[in-house]
């Protein structure tokens, strides 16, 4: 379980995250949504120790992220952020292989190779596994990074807007894979996402942030309420039920 307590982040005098406390349950998909500038990515960054915090604590399995051995935490928690490594000439296979770094720093074992192959297969990259990252389209590159996070094989997977650059087909397929990881392998996934309907269809819980504060956390049904959303986004919403899923209409 991830336990966040009174977490704070300031840039200069501006509070980007203002005393947020919440618990992210194990074995579920939790989506973090909210308007631009709500602090979603900052929150995710602080959970994953890639952004320094100014106050509060983040406990992962009862141990503060700061007290975790760096390498050990890398076997338990993986984060994929928006990446700017566009012009690096590394093959997909190598990138995915780096996901195994926490386990075997030097040479890859047979077991590692199996996991790498499986992750590449998951993301449908088999035919281009020896292509260089700088030769790929945005979507292919994104899938390569996702495959590397899958190869890291962590219990907690944090994803910062992983659907960027993915078309509808790959976006929904990817979310289905996440669903499988949670349902079959009991992984815990936290995802920052812009598309509220994707969040509603595939997650178990939704965390709503606004201006650095926790506005509301709850099950999909609790959050997908026109009044709640209108309050957060300052615009009219219409929540519909389609095939048992809640979908928002907004224009």
């Amino acid at each position: 379980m991830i336990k966040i307590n009174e977490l704070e982040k300031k840039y200069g005098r501006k509070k980007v995250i203002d005393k947020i406390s919440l618990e992210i349950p194990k074995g579920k998909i939790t989506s973090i949504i909210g308007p631009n500038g709500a602090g979603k990515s900052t929150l995710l960054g602080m959970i994953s120790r890639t952004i320094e915090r100014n106050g509060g604590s983040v406990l992962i399995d009862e141990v503060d992220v700061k007290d975790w051995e760096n390498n050990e935490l890398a076997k338990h928690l993986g984060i994929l952020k928006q990446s700017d490594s566009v012009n690096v000439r590394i093959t997909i296979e190598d990138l995915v292989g780096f996901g195994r770094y926490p386990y075997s720093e030097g040479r890859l074992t047979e077991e590692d190779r199996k996991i790498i192959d499986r992750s590449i297969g998951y993301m449908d990259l088999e035919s281009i596994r020896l292509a260089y990252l700088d030769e790929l389209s945005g979507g292919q590159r994104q899938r390569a990074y996702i495959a590397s996070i899958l190869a890291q094989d962590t219990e907690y997977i944090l994803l910062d807007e992983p659907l960027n650059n993915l078309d509808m087909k790959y976006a929904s397929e990817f979310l289905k894979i996440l669903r499988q990881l949670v349902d079959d392998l009991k992984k815990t996934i936290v995802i920052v996402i812009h598309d509220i309907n994707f969040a509603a269809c595939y997650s178990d819980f939704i965390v709503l942030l606004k201006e650095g504060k926790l506005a509301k956390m709850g099950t999909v049904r609790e959050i997908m309420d026109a009044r709640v959303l209108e309050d957060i986004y300052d615009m009219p919403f219409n929540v519909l039920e389609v095939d048992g899923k809640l979908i928002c209409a907004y224009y």
Partner: protein
Amino acid sequence: MNLAIKDINKRSLIKLTLILAAAILSLVSLSIGAEEIIWSEAFTEGTFSRTLLFKSRIPRTISLLISGFGMSIIGLIFQQISRNKFVSPTTAGSVSGAQLGIAISLVFFSKVSTLQMMLFGFVSSLAVTGIFMYILRRLKFKEVVYVPLLGLMLGSVISSITSFLAYKYNFLQVLYGWFYGSFSLAISGRYELLYLIIPTLFVSFFYAKAFTIAGLGENFSTNLGLNYRIVVNIGLVLISAVSGAIVIVVGNIPFLGLVVPNIVSLYGGDNLEKNISIVGLTGMIFILCCDLICRRIIYPYELPIALVVGVIGCGLFLMLIFRKEAGSYET
């Protein structure tokens, strides 16, 4: 899986070819010079050929091999940790830093030992390289071409301090040797400092994977449990140590650390684990060729190697920029 094995075989073949080429060029380098070596006498005690071979030719060739290998590898590491293809010890001020350190050591000690110079060169190179990395971290717009421009600016500021010291304390003549690299003085008794580079090369190989991961960014590294700061700092130490030693023995060899890694990257990618030795070997071959040109072009005299490397490197560098430009339009 088959693809991967094919890839490994291809790389081994490339490495073997490069080693062979380097060996042949080394032999040529040993036998060429103002004086002819009579090979039948070379291994008999007391002959002129023997003295020539062991006091001059062998040290020179070894210096070429070590500097070619070292300079290209630290260029590769520098490009990786700064995440910019146009950064190298010359374009980021590391070499200027080393020169300043040597100048300071000359001011401080009336009779300075090579090791003292090395130490001063190393520390000062490390400081300048550190400043460069610090500015780079602070920089908001990391435009690909601005970064080396910034390094060149930093380098010229440092160089002018060095020149000032040289004017003031009257050692401009001596300084000239460190600005324009040449292997003509890499003789027995003077070149041994270069052996200090060899252990740093082992460290480079050991951290090859870490450098590659660091090249993918701080977040990516932290996520994998890699301490980004430490890896970058190890890289900086390696860069400064190698730059310092080479500047003292040989002088500045511009473009080598820039051109060689870039050419290899075009064909072999940026994974250091796979191509660090290819880069090093290519650097050896490149510098051996340049040195041979230097020694033949106004025979029996010779040109400073910096000149030839500069001309050839500059051409290759321009080619790279044009290729990059063409590439960026595609995406």
